[in-house]
């Protein structure tokens, strides 16, 4: 009769071990920068563009331009000039750079394939004005199927 008290208790150790394994997995693959990517943009397909992992690049600024020419960053519509100026000032302050010096930040431009050149060029010129020189124009690799239907 002495052993009856311990019979009903589940052993939580293996469950805890599995949970820690799962936590470790999700911590390793966590990518908070992916939150800055607007998934509803349809990027142009370019044959020679190759997937490049920009995770090693320390300083990135992701700009999404939708087909109406609106700049979207951090999930919200942003005024072009004010947003880019704000980001440039932050980079300059962090890197102790003088105004007029080239900024080391890589500007990642994700524009919809229907975006007009005037809207894209406005963003590029504003970035150039504030010292950005390095740009990465994102495309879809050829052969990638899109899950959502669209025009």
């Amino acid at each position, binding site marked *: 009769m002495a052993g009856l008290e311990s019979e009903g208790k589940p052993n*939580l*150790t293996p*469950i*805890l071990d599995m*949970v*820690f394994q*799962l*936590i470790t997995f*999700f*911590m390793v*693959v*966590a*990518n*908070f*920068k*992916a*939150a800055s*990517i607007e*998934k509803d943009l349809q*990027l*142009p*397909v*370019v*044959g*020679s*563009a*190759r*997937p*490049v992992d*920009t995770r090693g690049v320390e300083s990135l600024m992701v700009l999404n*331009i939708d087909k109406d020419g609106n700049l979207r960053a951090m999930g919200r519509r942003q005024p072009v000039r004010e947003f880019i100026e704000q980001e440039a000032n932050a980079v300059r302050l962090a890197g102790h750079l003088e105004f007029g010096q080239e900024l080391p930040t890589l500007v*990642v431009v*994700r*524009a*919809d*394939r*229907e*975006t*007009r*050149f*005037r809207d*894209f*060029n406005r963003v*590029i*010129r504003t970035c*150039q*004005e504030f010292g950005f*020189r*390095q*740009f*990465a*124009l*994102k*495309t*879809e*690799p050829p052969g*990638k199927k899109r899950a959502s239907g669209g025009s």
Partner: protein
Amino acid sequence: MRRRRGHRSQEEVELNLAAMLDMAFQLLAFFIATFRPAPLEGQITLRLPPPEARTTQGTQPAGENVNSAEIPKGLKTLVVNVFSDGSGEIKSLSFGEENATQVETLAALDLNLTKIFGDPTYPYEQVILQVSPSIRYERLMEVVDVLTRLKVARVDKETGRTVWSPLSKLSFVEAAGG
């Protein structure tokens, strides 16, 4: 009866794992909710300086002689024109300025530019892409793709050998009209 010294009652120390498991589940739920795999995307990396003066007159580069009243020499520029009729599609493709050479397709543009940049005696210092404002971004990227795949030939002054490098100076300019 007194208990013997040294005989200790066996006290079982139980670790309450329920609380720790609860916290672990909280953390797991957080990481699952914020898990967002980055999409696989290609990219074209460019260095885009602002377009510089491209006058063909002048004798010396700007800034060389502050006392000179001469017109400073601009950069040798190849202009590639991409014009639309307002629909967003490419209506005409050409390169050059005064006597622009028209081409029908991107493949023809690629062929011509490969010939130009493959000759070290035509050392263009910058390429300006002059584009109609209504051109669709997808069409623009097709032209940019052609330009970024070009290899520019230069003669190394020290060794005298031909060195190939990708096009490094590309600028965008918005053309007037549609």
